[in-house]
Structures are given as C-alpha cells and as structure tokens.
C-alpha cells in the first residue's frame, strides 16, 4: 500500500519520464526486444503465476536447473545432482563461487528461503501447490495451510553452503522440471527483509541471480534488463540488453515486429498465420505448449450419464478438419489426453487411433442410435466457451460436426472469461470447452489433475483410476512410471468423461538475425542463449 506522498512522487516521476523520453535515442542493436503479451501480473519470483512475467523472470532469476532452447533440463545454479535409490531424496550441488547480482555470495540457504517464502501464507502466493501437490515435499502442505510456522519441518534443507537437499514423501522423477526459476528462484534475504516485496520492482534495490538484472520497470510498457556481470556464465551471455515489451494487442505486435521494434513476438494473429507461414516460413515458430484443450462432459447431466453417448460425441469430431481447416491456429489435434508433451511418454493404445475418420463417424452414429437418440429425438447440447475468437471458432466447428454426423442440436454459449471460469463450478453447463495448462511438459501433471481425489470438479468417481495412479507414483524412474501412467490414462480415456481435442501451440515470430531460439514446450526461452547477428 502506498501513501499520498509516494503517489505524487510517482506521478511526478512518470511525468518527468514522459518528458525525458523526448531525448531518449532510438533503440540500438545491442538490445533484444521481446513481446510478452498482456501485462505481467508480478515480478515477485515467489508470487508470479503468469507466463508474461515468466519470460522476464526467466532472464532475471535462475533456479537449481535451467532449460536449454529446446526445453531440456540443464544444470543451472546447481552443477550436478543425484537421487536416492528410493527416489524420494534429491541432493543438489551448487556451483562454486555463485554470486548475487550485487556481489553477495549465493548460498544453499537462499533456495530454502525461497521455498519457505512461497509456502508462507503471508506471501499470498498461489504457487505453494507445486511443492505439496505436484511433488510432495515433506512439511510443505502444513506450512502452506498455516498449520505450522516452524521452518524446520520443511523437507528442503541446506546442510552446507553448496548443498540443497529435497526430501519428498513419494518419489517424483518430474521434480527436476520444477527446479527452474519459475518455482525455485532463490531469495536474497537481506534486500527482501529490508524492503519487502517492493524491492522486486525497484531497479535500485532488486538483487537477482540470473543472466540479467532489472534496470527499468514501466508498468504496462516494458521491463529493461541488462547483463549481470556476476552471473556464473556471464562470459557466454551475448546480448547486452533485453527489453520485454507489453504487447497486449496482437495486431499491433505484428506491426511492431514488421517495423523492427520487436524481435520476438508473443503471438501471431490467427488471421495472418497462414500468410506469414507461406511468405516467411523461417520466421514463424509454431510448436506444442503445455496447454491442453478438451471438451468436458457434465456427468450430472442425465443425457451425458450414458457412456455410449459420450463416446459417440468424442468419435464424431474430425479433429484434423477442426484444427486445420476451421480453427487454423496451429493447434495439434489429438485423441489421447496426456500424450504429446514428453516424447518419452508413449501413452496407452486406444481403439480410436487406428480407425479412419469415416469409421469413427459410423461408430458414433451407431452408438448415438443405441443411446436412444435419432432424427425424431435429437440430443440437445450447449457448449460453454469464452469469447476468445479461437475458442468460438472451435466450438462452432464442433457444433457443426455434431449436427452433421449425429443430428444433434448444439448451441454455442460464449461468455467472458471470468464468468466462464465460475460457470464450471456452478454445474450449470453440459459441454465445457475446457483447458488445462500443465505445470511442466510431461504426462503426470495432467493425469494427477484428473484424480477424483484431487477434486478438480468433474464429479467423476473411479477407484480403479486412483489405484492405477497410486501404483504409478511408486516408481522413482520415468520409464516404470510412464508405463504405469499409461495404464491409468487408459482407464481415464475409456470412461469418456471428456473429448480430447488438441494441444494449443506456442506461436512466435522470430527475426532471422536472432539465433538461439528453440521450441521449448514449457515456454522457457532464456535470452542468455540467444545472439543478435
């Protein structure tokens, strides 16, 4: 909170900035200009929960691991790590001589303090669940719920200045995916204790440990970063300045890109995607993200309690036509749920996959009739979606297919996003144009969410699924675990509680002179890997 005096000072500073801008020279070539979409919600590394700020914080902070341009896990502040035989304990070894941007030595306890601050209810962070739900670190849930304030219960410890030990209640090989800056940024306690969360947006006071340091923050406009000379790998950071611009309007962003004001865009306008792909294929990057799209069936709806009908609805959708001819946003159509994020996960064998679309539609019609529907007694449905153009197009396409193949009468009900979010929990919907953004690029984040015990609101009961997930989660290695997860996914898919649709892609335009950009599914694109040629 801020007093009047400070507000007036801000006002004057802002007014002065407007005048000062008149003398600022044009952008130089030593700056990488990146679009981050709509405005970031927070530059506080323990609080921020959105992707826009994620791009900025990825440059300013580094976790125990980091991600290369293709999204692979590579050593970050930790140079190595090992897991115990049972897979429940991970020990990370920090690099020698690590420093904060102000020159202070960076020690293992700084990582412990980062986790403690994330979990502390006073921080009002929504990210605590990474530590007690996505992976189950000892003591994390009790700290997050405020049951205890004793930091010694936490299973993240620093036995010495260069060792971080993480103890979990169950093995979780995906722990490494959560050890990057987004979840695991360290905390520089001296500056935070002195200035509170306000230090994170104050270039004069913020202390960070990433490849770049924050030099200027203008809300709704941009964040300017400068190379951090105290970063352990500073010698290999090539671009001196990075400017992350708020690019709320995708049409304006494209024009700014074309004018050379932006080097990497946040998105590509749907209407322009086809043309740009044809004209400048080298500059268009479209690759899978961790954003999964599926249409959920309301299991408390009497019609939809019939599994044959649910299967018929899923089979009737020609996903290739839907995504490639109707939506045209570059989404990757799919028939399964958790596959497509980690190439190592093969997923279950499903009958639909080996059928042609004509066969699927024939079976759909058969099941639809078997469920008791027909021309005289058509099924009536409503698809509830948001007002975003891409979502309306997909819903209208699906409605058309259900009408054409099955003869169902389908309405599309599009509403503002917040209203749509709340609608789900009111249960006043039949088909929900659903989505889920994974915590990391792997199957388990999606499958764990669907557990009836996770209470995500689907009203689905399946002891078999719970048991299969429990069994899968005992494996400390990815290979065994993925086999177990595939078994669980089969149970999930066979109940048709939703129709899988597609994976929403990341869409970026990247200038030809920018090298080192890669297809990272989780959206990690650290500027430190890039060069301007």
């Amino acid at each position, binding site marked *: 909170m801020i007093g009047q005096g400070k507000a007036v000072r801000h006002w004057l500073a802002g007014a002065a900035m407007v005048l000062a801008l008149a003398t600022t020279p044009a952008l130089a070539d030593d700056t990488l200009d990146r679009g981050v979409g709509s405005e970031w919600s927070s530059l506080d590394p323990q609080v921020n929960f959105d992707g826009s700020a994620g791009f900025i914080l990825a440059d300013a902070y580094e976790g125990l691991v980091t991600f290369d341009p293709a999204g692979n896990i590579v050593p970050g502040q930790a140079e190595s790590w090992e897991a115990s035989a049972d897979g429940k304990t991970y020990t990370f070894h920090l690099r020698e001589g690590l420093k904060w941007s102000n020159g202070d030595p960076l020690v293992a306890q700084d990582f412990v303090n980062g986790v403690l601050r994330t979990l502390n209810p006073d921080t009002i962070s929504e990210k605590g669940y990474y530590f007690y739900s996505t992976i189950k670190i000892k003591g994390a849930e009790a700290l997050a719920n405020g049951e205890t304030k004793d930091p010694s219960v936490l299973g993240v410890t620093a036995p010495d200045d260069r060792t971080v030990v993480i103890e979990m209640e169950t093995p979780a090989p995906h722990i490494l995916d959560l050890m990057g800056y987004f979840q695991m940024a360290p905390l520089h306690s001296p500056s935070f204790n002195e200035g509170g969360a306000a230090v994170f947006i104050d270039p004069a006071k913020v202390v960070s440990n990433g490849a770049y340091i924050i030099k200027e923050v203008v809300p709704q406009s941009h964040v300017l970063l400068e190379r951090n000379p105290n970063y352990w790998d500073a010698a290999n950071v090539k671009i001196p300045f990075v400017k992350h611009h708020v690019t709320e309007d995708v049409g304006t962003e494209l024009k700014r890109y074309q004018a050379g004001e932006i080097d990497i865009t946040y998105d590509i306008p749907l209407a322009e995607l086809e043309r740009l792909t044809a004209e400048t294929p080298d500059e268009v990057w479209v690759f899978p993200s961790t954003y999964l799209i599926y249409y959920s069936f309301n299991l408390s709806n009497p019609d939809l309690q019939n599994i044959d009908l649910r299967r018929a609805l899923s089979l009737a959708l020609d996903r290739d036509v839907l995504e490639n001819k109707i939506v045209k946003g570059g989404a990757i159509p799919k028939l399964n749920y958790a596959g497509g994020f980690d190439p190592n996960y093969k997923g279950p064998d499903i009958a639909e996959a080996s059928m042609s679309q004509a066969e699927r539609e024939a079976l759909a019609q058969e099941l639809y009739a078997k469920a008791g529907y027909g021309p005289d007694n058509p099924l009536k449905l409503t698809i509830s979606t948001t007002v975003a153009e891409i979502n309306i197009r997909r819903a209208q396409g699906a409605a058309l297919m259900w009408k054409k193949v099955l003869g169902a009468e389908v309405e599309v009900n599009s509403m503002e996003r917040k209203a749509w*979010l709340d609608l789900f929990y009111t249960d006043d919907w039949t088909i929900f144009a659903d989505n889920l953004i994974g915590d990391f690029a792997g199957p388990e984040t999606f499958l764990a969410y669907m557990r009836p015990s996770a209470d995500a609101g689907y009203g689905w009961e399946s002891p078999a699924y719970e048991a299969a997930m429990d069994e899968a989660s005992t494996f400390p290695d990815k290979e065994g675990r993925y086999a177990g997860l595939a078994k669980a996914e089969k149970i999930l898919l066979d109940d048709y509680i939703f129709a899988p649709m597609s994976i929403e892609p990341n869409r970026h335009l990247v200038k030809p002179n920018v090298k080192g950009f890669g297809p990272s599914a989780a959206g990690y694109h650290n500027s430190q890997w890039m060069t301007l040629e």
Partner: protein
Amino acid sequence: MLRFIGKRLWHGGLTLAALVTLTFFVMRLAPGGPFSRNRKISPEVQANIEAAFHLDEPVWQQFGRFVWGVLRWDLGPSTKHRDYSVNDLIASGLPYSLTIGFWAIVIAALVGVALGLAGALKRNSATDYLAGTVGVVGIAIPIFVIGPLFQAYFSLRLGWLPVGGITEGWRSLILPVIVLALPNIAYISRITRTSMIETLRENHVRTARAKGVGWRRVLTSHVLKGALLPVIAYLGPATAAIITGSILIETIFAVPGIGRHFVDAALNRDYPLVMGITLLYGGILILFNIGTDVVRAVLDPRIRNER
C-alpha cells in the same frame, strides 16, 4: 457566481457518490471473482488469498472499507497487479494519458474551430467542402480502423514514426495524438460551423451591423462569444474523456496509460482498480462539466442567472 459554483460542486459530489456506490455493487453482481482460476487451489490457500484482500468480509463491510480508504486517499492494492497499489497504477499511467490527451484536445480545438469558422464564413466554398469532408471522415471511420491504417502507412510504408510503445519520445506520441484528435476535429468543426451560421443570423448581430459596426468588430465581440458556447459545452466532457485515456488508442499504439487499465481491470475483476479508475474518471468528468458551466456562465449571463 460563488453560489453558482458551490451548487454545482454539491451536485457533482452527490453524482460521484452515487456513481461510485452503484459501480461497487454492480461489480460484485458480475460472475467470477479476482481469483477465479481454471485450476482449483486448496481451500485453505484460496481462503488465505481472499482474506488478504478482505474478500471474505460481507459486501457492505468491504464498501465501508473502500469509502474509508478513499477518505484517506488510499485506493487499496490491485488484485491482478500484485506489485502495485491502485494509487501506483494510476500514478504511473495517468501522465501518459494526460500527455496524449492534452495534445489531442489542443490540436482538435485549434484545427476544429479554424475549420468550422472558415466553413461558416465562406459557405459552399472549397474550404467549406474540405472541412465537411474531414468532418464526415473523422466521425464515420472509427479509431480502430484509422489507427492501424496510419500505422501501416506512416510506420511500415514510410518508416517515419514508430508503430507503438513509448520508447521513442515525442515521435511515439505523434500517431496516437493525431488519431485521437481526428474524430474530435470533426465534431468541433461541425459544431463551430453550425453555431456560427446560427449566430450570424441573430438579431443582435444584425443590429450591430445596422448600427454600422465594422465586420471584424462584429465577429470578435458579438459573434464569436455566442458561437463558441456549444463548442465549449462539447469541449468540457470531451476533454475529460480524452485525458483520462482512450482504451482503443492505448491498445492500438501500446501506450501504457490509464485507459487500458479501465477495461482490463473490469475483465480481471480487479475490484479495487475498477473502483479507483471509476472514481478518477467520474471525478474528472464532473469537474470538467462544472468548469464548462462556469465558463459558459461567464460568457452568457442568461446561464448564470437561471435558478
């Protein structure tokens, strides 16, 4: 005159209070809240977040808290922009909106009045038709069409000016200022022209001419004063609307002003920010309306003497 101003201020205050109260409660009726997510978080954590922003309190208590905050000049924390208070966000965005709005209204008033006068004094001349065309184009083509067209031509084709952002100083301001001024030039020139023509036909003007007063003198002391009254009546609320930021202009030209926050805050259910901007916008609008009334009262004795 003081009584006149006092009365207007009192009415303005009441209007503002009613506006703010209505907005506060209508906001709460909309489905969804600031922390609605498609990923359900644990009830304890959700409760903790809501308590931190006092969303767990009864609505009337939240309203009381808001009013108490306003009295202390504290609009509370933003629920979306966690690093900033509402005061911070307004303080950072307003200068940009004010700068662009100020220049746009100055240009609109000067050019609009000049075009209107020229048109009225030389009716059906080339100047009149030009002014008329500018007027029709300015009013008929919306900002979200003109803006991107100007960007495409002046920035991409000719490369004279930046497409958007604020990083190139005064050059960044030119396009948004012009595009924002255009529809207002159109309105102002139309109002000026019509009003001038009407005033020229008034009895007092004819009398002055009959008495042998020179044409220039008639224009400056008898016509202009009366003819500009409707323009001033338009300028008051228009200035208030323009300087508090245009959502379209700020989005199209990526200007970090206050207008963009207005819509985003409502979509994000950022209650404190919505309330802060409503209060600011309402306050400025009412003040400019009062200012307009005062100026008109100075120019026209009939207005200040009305009961």
